[in-house]
């Protein structure tokens, strides 16, 4: 089976999308970019190819017609079919347990430095106890119909570990800070190592633990025997220069976002992408070809990080900001030119007794005002208008954008895909496929 891969190395997360020869999405993956793009790239490809196998399993054959090519179907293969989703949950569990073992080993290694010599045995025992309990919890996370807050190992493991560490730490013996330091050192090691041959290993474990019927085992065996040939790969995003492939296989994220948005919503003419550290306003033609674009140049205020910073200042999780801001009833105007100043303004307004939700609504509007300026400079907002990037998942930001677009340009159809985070990677994969077809022609 021939496939095409698109990899988007963003500042916050790295994404991969795999297309089959017909251009259908057959696999995708996402991971934290960390500081190591090589590893992020390897991890995310691995993850996406695991998904390809699962999507083949769900079809019981090569997935040439696995997914119709429209945005609604750009969904995780995990949502397809019942039997295979069980198998996939088991697969994820084994993957998680494997990483947990690596975490345990790395924490032990970290505990054996001279700093902790006096109490190394107690520390080791405590770490074992915590990871044993994390193991028990892992089965709950991956139970049928369990609702996981995140699919990132780091997020799940950190949440469990911190919870247990605060419960079991003793300020007079082994402190919470010491335990945190163990985790912080070890998680980097785990995240920066590549899980080679993971598919075969975790699959055989998953088949065993899920009591898969023979019919499914046959399908798995058949699918595992199919060779997946990566016929083309294109990389994009800030880390694209670090990708281990030649320059011809690298595209700017502006082109990839334009083409990706076009693939998701073919009537798109204007794309706004607000990512972690940049904002892009892109105009595309009927073929998804970029005709004009603007990006923030000197300053990254008005990007996703602005919200991240504000969340930190307010001691909130990033995903809590939007819902809180939506409870606002009063209009508050906030400076949008500097993230750090906005933080100062936030504290000042809190001190003046203004409501958190009103200030937050003002902050969301401030971000969108910056985006409006870029949109205007790129050529305005045409119909249809597609909003992508992490900030598109924030309902308060979307509401502010909707209002400001209506005020400035009139009614526009606003498209937001639940999978908008994959837009750049999808565009990259489409470029890979297009390059291949041009050579073939």
């Amino acid at each position, binding site marked *: 089976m021939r496939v095409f891969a698109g990899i988007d190395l963003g500042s916050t997360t790295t994404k991969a999308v795999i297309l089959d020869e017909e251009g259908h999405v057959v696999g995708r993956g996402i991971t934290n970019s960390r500081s190591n793009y090589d590893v992020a790239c390897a991890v995310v490809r691995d993850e996406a190819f695991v998904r390809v196998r699962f999507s083949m399993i769900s079809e019981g054959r090569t997935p040439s017609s696995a997914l119709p090519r429209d945005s609604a179907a750009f969904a995780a293969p995990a949502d397809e079919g019942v039997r295979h989703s069980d198998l996939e949950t088991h697969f994820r569990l084994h993957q998680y347990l494997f990483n947990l073992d690596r975490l345990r080993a790395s924490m032990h290694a970290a505990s054996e430095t001279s700093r902790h010599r006096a109490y190394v045995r107690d520390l080791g025992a405590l770490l074992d106890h915590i990871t044993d309990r994390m193991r028990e919890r892992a089965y709950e996370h991956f139970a049928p119909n369990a609702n996981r807050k995140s699919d990132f190992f780091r997020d799940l493991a950190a949440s469990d570990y911190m919870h247990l560490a605060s419960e079991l730490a003793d300020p007079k013996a082994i402190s919470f800070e010491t335990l945190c330091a163990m985790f912080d050192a070890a998680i980097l090691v785990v995240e920066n190592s590549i899980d080679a041959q993971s598919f075969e290993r975790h699959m055989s474990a998953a088949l065993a633990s899920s009591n898969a019927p023979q019919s499914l085992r046959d399908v798995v065996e058949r699918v595992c025997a199919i060779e997946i040939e990566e016929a083309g790969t294109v990389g994009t995003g*800030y880390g694209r220069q670090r990708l281990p492939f030649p320059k011809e296989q690298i*595209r*700017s*994220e*502006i*082109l990839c976002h334009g083409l990706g948005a076009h693939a998701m919503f073919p009537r798109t003419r204007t794309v706004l992408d607000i990512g972690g550290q*940049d904002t892009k306003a892109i105009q595309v033609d009927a*073929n998804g*070809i*970029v*005709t*004009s*674009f*603007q*990006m923030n*140049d*000197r300053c990254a205020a008005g990007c996703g990080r602005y919200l991240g910073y504000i969340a930190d200042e307010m001691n909130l999780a990033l995903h809590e900001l939007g819902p809180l801001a939506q409870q606002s009833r009063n209009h508050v105007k906030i400076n949008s030119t500097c993230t750090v100043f906005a933080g100062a303004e936030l504290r000042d307004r809190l001190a003046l007794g203004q409501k958190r939700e009103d200030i937050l609504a003002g902050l969301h509007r401030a971000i969108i005002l910056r985006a409006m300026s870029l949109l205007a*400079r790129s*050529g305005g907002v045409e119909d249809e208008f597609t909003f992508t990037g992490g900030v598109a998942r924030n309902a308060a930001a979307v509401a502010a954008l909707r209002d400001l677009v209506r005020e400035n340009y009139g009614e526009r159809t606003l498209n937001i895909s639940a999978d908008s985070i994959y837009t750049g990677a999808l565009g990259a994969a489409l470029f890979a496929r297009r390059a291949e077809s*041009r050579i073939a022609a």
Partner: protein
Amino acid sequence: MSDVQKEASMLLQKRLLSDHFDVLSHATEEGRKVVYTFVPGNLNELVRSFDLLPLLPEINALQSGMRKLSGNYITEAEKHGHSEDVCTYVKCDIGQLLKGNIGPTGKPLPKPDLLLLSYTGCFTFLKWFELLREQYDCPVAMLHVPYQSNGALDEHQRQYVIDQLHSEVIPKLEQVSGKKYDEDRLREMLRLSAIAEDDLVWVLESAKHTPSPIDAYFGGVYYVGPIFSAFRGTQSAVDYYALLRREIEERIAAGLGPVTPDGQLKEERYRLVVEGPPNWTSFRDFWRMFYDEGAVVVASTYTKVGGLYDTGFRHDPAHPLESLADYCLGCYTNLSLPARVDLLERYVREYNADGLLINSVKSCNSFSVGQLLMLREIEKRTGVPGAFIESDLVDPRYFSAANIKNRIESFLQMLDQRRAIA
């Protein structure tokens, strides 16, 4: 820097410049008088006809930028109260002065005997020399050059400038030099100017060839160096441009593209027109972002700030003061926005460009105001796409390499994409 390829003309230019700074460094002890003046609308022939030495603070600033000295100078100026938003040429110059006035070649610079403010289209120039007057307590001659608001030169504007040359500039030059105005000498220099200008225009227009034998922006700023700085009207400039022209004739004959700091450009893949000054602090990195991708700048407006010769203007020995007036009035930054749009449109068409790139410099209002409007208008008229990047002249803090590279790559890939569809 040892791996940089240098042609004979580059070496000659380097020598001219370093000789000039040598002469300047000994000016005080040898009793020679020095006139500080600006590049756009400079009256080099007139100044030199009084045996006065021209010194151009903008050239010092950009040289300091290229030699990585400007960052410290700017910090020094900010310490003395100059805002972050002030033109960085000014701050670089003031900082250099505050740090002992050592020129870019490491030799001391003389104090001015006269500040000749010969162009006022840039309001900052006025403020700049006010600051220098404060420091040096020396006379100022101000030539007010009216803005070409209707896009063409009016007779009354020309007369207004000539009157000021008679009433203000020449008397002050006579006073400082102790010499009488010698029109014959001026005519001879203007004759030399016109010869060099002919060759310069030929060189810049050589970029109409495909492949272009020159880069008319990154290479172009070197090519305009002698004529924009202290050498217009000298035999040295005539020799330099004759040599340069011969080199480029050879390159055309051999079908070669421009020479970059990393050697001969292999393949011309994109032809661009660039509006706006370059960034000097990361000049080579900035250039590399273009030549690595095979992007060649075939025409630029920045190479017209010290004189717009490719629309036919030449200094004219038969009409010395009239032609100096016309020269001042016609400098690129003295043109109206519609006139600038017309010029850029002409460049896009005549040089068969694939794209227009604007490098917008925040601290330079005379260049930056209206640039986005210009971009849209040229896109509309020509159908050739434009892109917009932002950096600075000589403040190293305002060059974000990753962002700019990203923007340029995206733009070039966008041009590719459009070609693939066409």
